[in-house]
């Protein structure tokens, strides 16, 4: 009992340790997994994030006009586990440290991160595809030769060209 007396009297002298949160912002640690942002330019639409998502929060669907792919994260069913960021080959998905997730019921179905991944015609056959980044191409085909042109082709055309002997022979 005397031990507790000492503790609480010390507490009285030290003063409150409460943060002033709703009236003053409280910084979050850098590594905190909060709301998701998606970089549509880096995305290759591989659907890996959709596959690993534990809460089923990520949805990738071809848009109605078939000009690209709709990417949607519904934060109301996201567990903020970070698996999508871990498995993303191009690091297009990033979990920010923004934790301000409270919202009104009216916004329930609008509480999403929505981006549009645009399709471009294949430089070889004209089929609309999602271009892959140069870094990806290097990762797959190595750094030798002229591989720059491969990044804007559809997989079939890439295969054909490589069989013929590389981009330089085109």
């Amino acid at each position: 009992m005397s031990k507790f007396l000492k503790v609480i009297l010390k507490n009285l002298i030290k003063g409150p340790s409460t943060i002033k949160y709703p009236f003053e912002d409280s910084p979050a640690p850098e590594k905190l997994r909060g709301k998701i942002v998606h970089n549509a330019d880096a995305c290759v639409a591989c659907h890996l994030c959709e596959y690993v998502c534990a809460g089923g929060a990520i949805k990738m669907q071809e848009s109605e006009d078939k000009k690209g792919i709709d990417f949607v994260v519904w934060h109301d069913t996201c567990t903020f586990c970070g698996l999508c960021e871990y498995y993303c080959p191009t690091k297009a998905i990033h979990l920010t440290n923004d934790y301000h997730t409270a919202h009104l019921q009216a916004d329930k179905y609008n509480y999403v991160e929505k981006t549009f991944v645009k399709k471009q015609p294949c430089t070889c056959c004209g089929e609309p595809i999602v271009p892959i980044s140069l870094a990806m191409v290097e990762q797959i085909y190595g750094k030798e030769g002229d591989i720059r042109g491969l990044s804007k082709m559809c997989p079939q055309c890439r295969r054909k060209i490589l069989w013929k002997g590389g981009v330089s022979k085109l």
Partner: protein
Amino acid sequence: MNVAEFFVNVFIFPGGLFAIMLGLLLTGLDRKIYARLQRRVGPPIYQPWLDVVKLSQKETIIPKTANYTAFRLAPLLGFAGMLAAIAIIPVTGIYSGLYQSGDLLVVLYLLSAPALALAMGAAASGSPYSSIGLSREISIMLAYEIPMLIVFLTVGMRVGMEIGGTAIFSLSSIVNFQLSQGSLLLDLPMLPAFLAFLICIPGILGVVPFDIPEAETEITEGPLLEYSGSGLAMFKLTGGLKMLVLSALTVALFFPMGLGSFWLVNLLWFIFKCVVIMFFTTTLIRAMQARMRIEQAYKFYLLFPTALALISLVLTAISFRI
């Protein structure tokens, strides 16, 4: 005493309105200091007023199983008992009390009014949790009434033997005796009785080591479970008044000294004494103790305060050679 003065004393000052304000102030201070002891900011001191206003605006739900009359009447009963008690207790330099003889016994009976009201409300509400709370409330009441009675007897005997050769249960004579002869606290045989009375206070108030009847984590606030809205507001007011009555009673029984003759100084001095008593009996104990079980509390009250009070009684009796 004429009728107008009586009504002013009971309903405005020092009973009634003023007592309610002071009681809520004590509750607010208690919550604030309690939070500070735990390194929290805590609610503002005026929080109990806000709570009472809010509760009075909320919907009042009466359970289907409840006895309507008893359920609605119970909060009023405890509240009225406490209002009557505060009008009886004299405050030095401000107020001399309503009656001149036997009022200590009346206070003893009135002090059990809130507990009985709680028990009545709990029985009327028809909830199983409430009935567990009711049985606990009554058993802890039985436990703390015994030492309290012995303390009153000791004080009455100590003062009465000095004045007239028989025990006196008049608060005004006890206060006047101390004003002329010095505080009872300076008298060594009375010290155990004082301690015993202080130990009884948290039990009567029902705060943490002895809040077994209202344990919110195990029996979800027990007797208060079915109360909502204005009935609950009444119980909150009664809680504040109970704190005031007990501090005022301690002041009147053991150190009623005033400070000069100006009434405002006396009033502030009285409030200061009340806050000090509240801090040591309620806030400090609440912050460092965990809740007891009912049989532990029962044993505790029948052992320590009763033993202390009995020591005091015997010492007083020996000093008068009865």
